[in-house]
């Protein structure tokens, strides 16, 4: 549906992030997320798709139509791309009523429907968004959550080929954000509109997306389903940016015949699983998520067992649905997350990294 190829835009000043050779494609009805820290170039990429930025190289194809190509000098202006977009600030026009905001894209369409037809479509969209009683209200009087739904209604009313969302939830408070996240996912599936979503919030990205592109420093680091991104991050950046992690840089790497990898870390040797080929992984690190670390009493013998280390609990935090402990092994602190259990366990513990849950990944240089 959408194909982005080799998109590049570099800025002279460092204030706005540039992008380098961004390529990806989005399937019909897919929810695709660009995830990354601020300044990684995700918003620049989105605005380039919208036609609000003109990249210096690359091309963008929407459906079977080329809408942007530097080499061929093609630039379809944003108002002819037939897109829907929700801005970070919503950009709900404060001088218009809710109805006028939503009907605007229909009025601007090349083939305008009749007045009654437009009214019907707006009413239907407002119904979907739960804004039925608000049509004649001034847009400036709406609350943050309502403005957000209005912005979404405006973006969807003309049945765009592609929906672009630029951090639409970032201006909402925590509770509303959680609620709107669910709404957004439900709506997108219901309407079936192809969606590109930009966020810096990894939890949002994991919960909403069909696929995620993790970006850093203007480039895409990894593209994959939420599962792939979380379970098989390609490098230390993705591992630490998405989810919480214990990461141990390797001093030496040894590959076994059965596909497992042995990494010499500050803790000692750690046996890991390698995703795909581990050859050429000169600089590797062992990654284990806090919820995969197994905690046992330090009662057993202290003879060395593979992937088991003796440590001391130095900090306990009760999070409601889980308990987090910081275990110090030598000079290293390991984060352990357990679902239940008493707060005051033993002070001396053994931590165990199940090898099938421990991943060898490329370490950043």
């Amino acid at each position: 549906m959408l194909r982005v190829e080799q998109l590049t835009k570099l800025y002279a000043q460092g204030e706005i992030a540039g992008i380098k050779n961004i390529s990806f494609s989005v399937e019909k009805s897919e929810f695709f997320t660009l995830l990354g820290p601020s300044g990684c170039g995700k918003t620049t990429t989105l605005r380039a798709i919208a036609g609000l930025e003109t990249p210096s190289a690359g091309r963008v194809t929407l459906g079977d139509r080329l809408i942007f190509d530097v080499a061929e000098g093609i630039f379809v202006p944003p108002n002819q791309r037939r897109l829907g977009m929700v801005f970070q600030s919503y950009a709900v026009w404060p001088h218009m009523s809710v109805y006028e905001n939503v009907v605007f894209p229909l009025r601007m369409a090349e083939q305008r429907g009749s007045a009654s037809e437009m009214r019907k479509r707006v009413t239907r969209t407002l119904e979907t968004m739960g804004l039925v009683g608000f049509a004649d209200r001034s847009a400036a009087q709406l609350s943050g959550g309502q403005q957000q739904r209005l912005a979404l209604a405006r973006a969807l009313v003309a049945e765009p080929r592609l929906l672009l969302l630029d951090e639409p939830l970032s201006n909402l408070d925590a509770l509303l954000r959680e609620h709107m996240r669910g709404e957004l996912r439900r709506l997108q599936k219901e309407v079936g509109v192809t969606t590109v979503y930009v966020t810096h919030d990894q939890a949002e990205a994991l919960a909403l997306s069909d696929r995620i592109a993790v970006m850093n420093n203007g480039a895409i680091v990894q593209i994959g389903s939420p599962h792939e991104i979380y379970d098989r991050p390609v490098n230390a950046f993705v591992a630490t940016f998405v989810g919480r992690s214990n990461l141990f840089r390797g001093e030496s790497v040894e590959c076994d015949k059965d596909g497992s990898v042995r990494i010499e870390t500050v803790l000692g040797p750690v046996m890991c699983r390698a995703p795909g080929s581990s050859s050429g992984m000169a600089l590797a690190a062992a990654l284990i998520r806090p919820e995969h670390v197994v905690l046992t009493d330090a009662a057993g013998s202290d003879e060395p067992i593979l992937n088991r280390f003796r440590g001391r609990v130095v900090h306990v935090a009760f999070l409601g649905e889980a308990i987090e402990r910081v275990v110090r092994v030598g000079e290293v602190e390991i984060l352990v997350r357990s679902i239940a259990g008493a707060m005051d366990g033993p002070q001396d513990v053994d931590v165990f990294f199940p090898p099938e849950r421990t991943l060898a990944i490329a370490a950043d240089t």
Partner: protein
Amino acid sequence: MTLTLAPIRASLANRLSPAILLLMALLAIGVVPPFLFLIYSSLHELDPDGAFGAFTFAHFIAIVSSRSFGPTLFNSVIYSFGSALLALVIGASQAWLAERTDASLRQLLYVASIVSLGIPYVLYIVAWLLLLGKAGPVNILLQQVFGGTAPYINVYSLGGMILVEGLLWSPLAFLLLAPVFRNSDASFEEAASICGAGLISTIRHITLGMAKPALLALGLLVFIKASEAFEVPALVGLPGSTRVLTSAIYQQLTLEIPPNTGTASAFGVLLLVVMAVLLQIYGRIAAQTHRYQTVTGKGYRPRVVRLGRWRYAAGVLIVAIPLVVVLIPLATILWAALLPFYQPFSIKALPLLGFANFVHVLNSPSFRDAIANTLVLGASAATIVTALSAVAGWCVARRLPGGGLIDTLAALPLVFPAIVLGLAFLEIFVHGGTHVYGTLASLVAVSVVAYMPYGLRYAQLGVIQIHPELEEAAAISGARRARAFVRVVLPLLVPALISSWLFVFLLAVRAVSLMLLLAGPDSQVVSVALFDLWNNGQIGEVAALGVVWTAIMTLFSTAFLVFARRFQLPVG
């Protein structure tokens, strides 16, 4: 002991301090008498010896029953409305081009506006009269193109008045609208673009739609300013017998001997009522201009509109507007200043050019006095206004006891059109039996009253930007309120006060109508000298004095804008 005393002292601090009482008294002395004298004079006959006679409604009846009253009122409304519309259209297009687009040479608009702020009204009007006059270059050009010998344009008409007044206000309209467009988040326009709107639709529905309250407020402001303006009605309107309310007042005072102050005052009272109503409406509209402020995302960027192929059209406009609004009038004046006897531009006249007029103006003691007087007048009025408004602005902004009354008193002169305020003070000086009439000191006093509202606005906004906690911290450290004001507020207020000083200075030295009735032989000022010279037909001297003065004033207006922009104060 000290503990029990503390609450009593705190309550004392909330009472009126002597300093604030003194300030109130000063303001009342300046502001209340003009009202009283104007109303009293409009309701009493004038005895032949110049003293007030019996009570009468005759002045009002004479005005309303006069055949010319209807047309005068009609002219006033059309003239003010037309000027407001013209100023708004030119100002808004400039502001949009300068702040929302990628058109080149955008800075040119700012430079031109700054220069134009320094041109005296009279000089600017004279330039247009020379350009559009019967024998002016525009009419000659039209005659050459379309044939015929009759002039095509009669500038001494309602249309001419609207054109000149509208152009006169367009730079200020631009400077006031620029921040409105500058501060608007670009995503509103981008959203329209995504929704399928092209450039024109976006401007119409979004840019102008969102700026509507600001445009309306500014339009009304220019409407008010034009209805109380005197210079254009006198110089452009009267020669063609187009009367508006302000010029009617002037005629009552100058055409008849002895001056008909009663009828003039009655006109003045009518105008005051109109002003009061308009200002009330303006206050309501201006309060709404912030209604459209909404969530601004973290991704806020005031991005510019890409004009594409419209860029060239925009470029033409950007060159054309300053050319018409500033450069051509200035060039005309310069041309006139260099000629011994005025004639329209032609190659034949080139050998006649010389600096005789400049030599004459700069060597003439009366002109040198006028320049010196004007500078003294401007500087003293600005200094007094700024000093008073620093304290007054603080009382108003911090809602000290008495602050409300101070606010009302200081703002009262706003309802006075300058010519009416001049008339009111004329009557005070004449009937009051004082010997201040015609002195420079009297002009300073009148200017202080007239420009106090503007000084107060600046000081008040300046104080609002200073967080009250800074003062509270001084109080906690043991400083009394007055001391906290001197040691904490005043130093932080300095930038706002400098802006206020420059603004009041520029207003005071530009004013014609306020000074026209009050300046005496010993207190000639530049603006009035220009007015008289033009009426005497001394075009060369008008132009030369005007050029010298414009050069001096441009320095001041540049300084003012630099300060105002740096400290983000409103330019109006």
